[in-house]
Structure formats: C-alpha cells, structure tokens
C-alpha cells in the first residue's frame, strides 16, 4: 500500500509537468481538470463515507455553497479570486460543522437522502433569491493572467493533492481511527471514549470545506454558474460512482475511480454524444454489479 501511495505522488508530479508535454492542451487541459476535480470531490467524500461511514449523497450542496460564495464575492464585491475561494471553502465547512449535530443523528440512506434534500432545497433557495442571480445564474469574470491556459489545471491539481494528503493523514492517524470506530459502531465508539458528535462533525466539516473549495474553483473555471449546475444531483452521483468504483475507505481508490470514470465518460461523451446518458447509466449499473466493492475495495 505504502508503495502504491508513492506512485501517486509521482503521478501528481507527472500531472504537474504535463502541460509542457501534451499537444492540444486546451482539450487535454479541460479533460484533466475535470478528472482532477472529480478526484478532489471523491476524496473529500471519502473522508466522510469511507472513514466515518456517512454517505453525504447531497454533499454537492457544499460545492454549491463554495461556488456561489466565491462567485458572489468576486462579482458583487470585486474580491480577488483567492480570498473569495478561501471564504467560499470556509463558509461551506462551517455550515457543515453547524448542521452536523442534528443532521448526523440520521444514518445510512436516511442521512444520504436528507443531505440530498438539503442540496436540492439550497438549489431552490438560490434559484429564488435576487443576489444569487436566481435561475439566471451568475457570469463570473474571466481569468486573464499568468499561466492563462494552465491556471485551472494547477488549481485543481493543488486541490486534489491537498485532498489526497488529508486522506492519507486520516488513514494513518489517531483521528482517523476514531472516525473508523464511528463508522463501525457509534455506541461502542462512545464507550471507548470517542466523542462521536465532535468527531463526525469535524469529518463532515473537513469534507465540506474541501468540497466548497472545489466548487469555488469550478465556478471560476466554468465562468457561468446557475442553481442547476451548482446543486446538480448528477454531480453527486458521479462523485460517488467514482468513489465506489475505485474503492471506499482507501486513499488511492477515489483517485483511481475518478480518473477512470472521467476518461471513460470523456470518450463516451465525445464519441457518442447523443447516447452518452444511456451509456453513463449503463456504466454505473454495470460498474456496481461487477465491482461492488470497488477496484481497491476493502470493505
């Protein structure tokens, strides 16, 4: 395992120099950015589902929160990107931290669906408010600056790296063991001294903070956001498919799953644009039936 993780660092290094090597960069830049974005999302969810056992099916709510916060700060208050992004991530993280105690009394698919409801409800709120641009959405300023063609690739690469490191830490640390205990049996975890409410809230907070950051970078990257794209259940599903495909509760699984899924859907998307939805559905169904435990699955 440890060796495999070294390989991942090499992989990150390769991704960092890739822009210099690949021809046809705008195209590959887009594909790689998507894959890295999905990786970050899957890794963020892995903290929560993989280690803590809570499937935040609607975790993309925090993607939306992060994205919208960043967008509104930049557009309406002309705050520069990086500070906006950071605030976006923090708003997402703190929101999660605050709602965690009541929300995380629910388990398994009750939790999953409640978070999904939250995600949809937030989408509705954003769609109905003025300062969020309503259903019209927001057009962000366009990035013009150094590394213009590479900027977002590096941003996403950075996020994926951070997420990966956090996963590594959780996998190995005392903190991570406490989370795993919660995943297995909360009553027992309490009985051996793990304050479950505290730890699971933290886990939710970290996961959502990362998700929020990804949302912020995405918003800036894609330049046009609206409620349906920022609170998109399909993105939730993609995140979890990537996660489950690669293997929940492993550090490498989410990365692997995300790249695999993104590459496959890119091929499907560009080759068979008309039927890509059908194929995507088919892939999800087959994927789960064939590798129900994920490629690197432990559970």
């Amino acid at each position, binding site marked *: 395992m440890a060796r495999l993780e070294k390989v991942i660092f090499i992989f990150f290094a390769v991704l960092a120099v890739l822009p210099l090597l690949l021809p046809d960069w705008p195209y590959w830049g*887009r594909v790689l950015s998507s894959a890295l974005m999905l990786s970050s999302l899957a890794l963020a969810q892995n903290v929560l589902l993989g280690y803590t056992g809570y499937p935040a099916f609607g975790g993309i709510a925090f993607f939306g929160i992060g994205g919208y916060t960043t967008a509104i700060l930049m557009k309406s208050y002309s705050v520069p990107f990086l500070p906006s992004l950071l605030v976006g991530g923090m708003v997402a993280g703190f929101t999660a931290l605050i709602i965690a105690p009541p929300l995380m009394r629910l388990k398994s698919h009750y939790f999953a669906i409640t978070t999904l409801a939250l995600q949809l409800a937030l989408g509705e709120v954003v769609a109905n408010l003025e300062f969020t641009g309503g259903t*019209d*959405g927001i057009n962000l300023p366009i990035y013009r600056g150094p590394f213009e063609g590479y900027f977002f690739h590096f941003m996403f690469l950075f996020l994926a790296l951070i997420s990966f490191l956090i996963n590594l830490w959780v996998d190995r640390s005392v903190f991570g063991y406490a989370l795993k205990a919660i995943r297995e049996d909360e009553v027992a975890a309490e009985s051996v001294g793990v304050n479950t409410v505290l730890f699971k809230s933290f886990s939710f907070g970290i996961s959502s903070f990362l998700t929020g950051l990804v949302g912020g970078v995405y918003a800036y990257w894609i*330049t*046009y956001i609206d409620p349906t*794209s920022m609170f998109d259940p399909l993105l939730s599903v993609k995140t979890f498919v990537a996660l489950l495909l690669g293997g929940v509760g492993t550090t490498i699984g989410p990365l692997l799953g995300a790249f695999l899924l993104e590459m496959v859907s890119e091929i499907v998307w560009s080759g068979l*644009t008309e039927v890509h939805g059908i194929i995507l559905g088919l892939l999800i169904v087959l994927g789960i039936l064939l590798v129900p435990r994920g490629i690197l699955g432990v559970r």
Partner: protein
Amino acid sequence: RLGAAVSFSGKYAKEGELLKRGYELWKERVNAKGGIKVGNKRYKVEIIYYDDRSDPKTTAKLVEKLITQDKVRFILGPYGSAQVFAAAGVVEKYRALMVQGGGASSKIYRQGYRHVFGVFNIAPDYGKNLIDLAVSLKPRPKTVAIIYEKDIFSEDAARGALEEAKKKGLKVVLFEGYPKGTQDLSSLMLKIRMKRPDVVIGAGHFKDSVLVIKQLKQFRINPKFVGLTVGPPVPAFVKALGKDAEYVFGPVQWSKAFRYKDPLFGSTEGFVKAYRERYGEDPEYHAAGGTAAALALQIAIERAGSLEVDKVRKELLSMKVETFYGVIGFDETGKIVTKPMAVIQIQGGKPVTVYPFREAEPVYPKPEWK
C-alpha cells in the same frame, strides 16, 4: 466551419428546430453560391450541431467542446436566453466569436462580453409591444395579470410588460413567476380567476404558452386580451391548440410582412419564398433570426477578408447592413439596435401582423372559450 449547440429536444425543441432551419437555409444558399468568400478563397460552410436538450449547462459544455475539440472559432448561437447566456461565457473565455439569434434577455449584454453578438431585440420589448397594443384597443382594458416562467428571458420580458403597463396606467393585479418546467399552473389560474383581469400576459416559451391557454380554458377564465411572448407565431402552436389558439396575441422579432432588401435572398420576399420551397410552410421569426445571425457573421467575415476573430469582430461592430430581416447593426455590447418588432394575432389558424402596421384588424375583445 461553424458550430452550433441547439435544443432539439426538451422544452425548447420546437424553437430549436426552427432555428436550425434558419441556419440550414442560409448554409445551403451560401454553399450554392460557392461558399463564404475570405480574401479570394471560397470556403464551403459546414455546421456541426449538438443537442443541448434545452439545458444551459449542457449548452456550455457543448460549446466548450465545439471550441476545444472540434476547433470551431465561430459559434452560431443556441436557442433560449439561458442557453445563450451560458454559451456566452465559454465563448468569451476562449476568445471565440458567437453571433446568435436565439436569446433576447438584456442580461446577456450586461456582462461586458466582447465576443457575443445578437440579432434579437431585447426581451423587455416583447412585453412592451404587447401592452402598447392592448392599450390602443377599444374599450381600453383596465387591469392586467402577468405571469412568467422564471427564466432569464421570460422574467425580463415580463418586467418589460410590467413597466409599460404601469407607465400606461394599467392596474397590474397579478405579477408572479413560476419555476421552469412547471406542468400545472392551477394555483396561478385560481388567482387569475379571482382577479378577473382584462388582459392576461404570459411570458414563457412555446410549451408554457400551450399550457397557459389549456388551463385558462380549463378554469374558464375569459380575459379580453391574451398575449403570450413566445409561441403564437410558431406554426405548431395552432396545431397543438386548434380552435383554442384563435385570437391570441404574440410579439415577433420579425414578420414576413417586413419589406427589406437582402444581399443573399434579394429581399424579404425572396427569403420567404426560399423558405417555403424548402420547408413547405411560412417562416416565422425564430428561423429568420437564425438566418439573420448567420448572415451577419458571413458579411462580417467577408468584409474582414479573414478568419481571425478580432478582425471579424471589428467588422461586426461597425456594420450597418440592410437584410431581409431589417437593418442589422450592433452597439458596443453586441446587441442589435437597428430594427423594430411587431405583434401578430392568430386569426383563422394563421398568424397575421396587427401591430405596429396592420395586415388585418385585431379581434378584440376575445370571444369566450367554447
């Protein structure tokens, strides 16, 4: 090579199909003449289409794909303001160029984009024209209910109507939006039924228009004047509603009653004739808008004598040409500023122009549903 991501399915399938017809008619005509002239070479036109399923984020994705993967520099716009809005950001980001005849929301032009041009008058004009017509009729209506779909275009159009109504001294008894994709307007209908307005304005797209008429009838609501922003001029409208479509008003960007000269088709009449030959029915404004957008792009490219985005853009900014569609000229923000709109009414199953010039007298007040 040009690219377009248009709705062939979903809410805007009808309008998207018409838009494509407009593009296709233009393409065939240009290719018949040997293609677009750039410098002294002629290029055959090829248009890559994708279906955005009436979903803005799909539009954005597809436009991005057109630019990065299919290497298209010139984009013909999608249908629907939200779609245009979404596409615009992408076009701007990659410094490609889009000319569109499918989005009328004024918001598109408030982003400071430099690479997006549109041949539609902005959305508030839709509402404004309807109200202007309504107040010119005898007996003068007193109250108006305005309902709209909550999307970037319809809301804009509804606000246009609201403002104009206030200005003209109409009492607005209801001004309310409903979410995209709503299939049942019962609660709105109940409200309208209670308020008994003289005028009902519905801002939405084709599907909404059909739904509004059906439900007005179902709830036995009989205003004197029913005006819908999008739908009435589309042939499918009459097909879907039959008799119930009679006497509904609708604003148009363009009418075949216009009389202009044209570099490609000779004149408005020429365009109408070509369209009729090709598709077996009269053109309406969506198709015309498509043709006009493509035509504007063509003219700019030919004048620039180059396929460089910047040069073509300069030509677009400075152009002022008469076409079958009216005079085309853009302001700094990229919106058209040189042409009028009109209003039609369905009479005998056909849209006839009743405002600002009259092909026929408007029927008013509208008879009750039967």
